């Protein structure tokens, strides 16, 4: 059986991070009952450029973007089962929570947060697994 990966992408080219930065991975892949997204960083919806900011501003951009990606594939933030959040510093956990919470108001997904290094000086990276 030849496996054709069911890659998902964003309709808006400015939000297509792998394409903008010429990176050899997919925004996400739909496989069976689930969608697996790559870790997202904050990009400016107007220009597609990395949007360095605060943990709050970056988190908001990331989750708004995640919503668009999932919705384009027939899923939604409400169907996310798990997120992983990488923060440049866990001292900013409260700010993360403040920015994150409104996107998952009812029955938020399972989550793990950790402090690690993120590429290009970004402060936040978030991935997810969602029901397709």
């Amino acid at each position, binding site marked *: 059986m030849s496996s054709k990966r069911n890659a998902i992408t964003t309709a808006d080219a400015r939000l297509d991070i792998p394409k903008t930065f010429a990176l050899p991975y997919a925004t996400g892949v739909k496989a069976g009952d689930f969608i697996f997204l790559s870790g997202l960083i904050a990009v400016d919806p107007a220009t597609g450029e990395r949007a360095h900011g605060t943990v709050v501003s970056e988190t908001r951009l990331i989750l708004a973007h995640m919503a668009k990606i999932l919705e384009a594939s027939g899923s939604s933030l409400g169907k996310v089962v798990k997120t992983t959040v990488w923060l440049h510093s866990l001292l900013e956990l409260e700010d993360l929570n403040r920015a994150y919470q409104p996107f998952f108001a009812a029955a938020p997904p399972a989550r793990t947060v950790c402090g690690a290094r993120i590429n290009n000086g970004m402060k936040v990276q978030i991935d997810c697994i969602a*029901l397709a």
Partner: protein
Amino acid sequence: MALAREILPAPSPGLDFAAVFGHPQTLAIRAGGLIFFSGMLAINPQTGEREHGTVTSETRRIFENLKLLLESAGSSLDRIVQVHALIYDRIEYDVLNRVYRQYVPNAPPCRTVWSVQIEAGLKVQLDVIAAA
């Protein structure tokens, strides 16, 4: 028919993360035959108090909490499939292994160890996916 995600109730008051810590995350979600957990920390399952200790004591508490949760959901520790073992410093890798292997002695899950910053200055966190 769209698959649903099912929020698993906390088996004891201290493990109700959202209630205890006010963090926007659900303890565990079941979907598609899998259970996705929020990263588990050394938390007293009754009181919700964080139990800062050694890598050994924290890992024990984490596995005991996971056991409680998994069994209340009709699963078990030996149904865990993937673990991200977050540790505050890779220097305690051997210490982690010594206690870890006691809880998953046969056909253990797959694992990646992440040496990262963990919430609240704790030393260990286990980010787990299990078969329901």
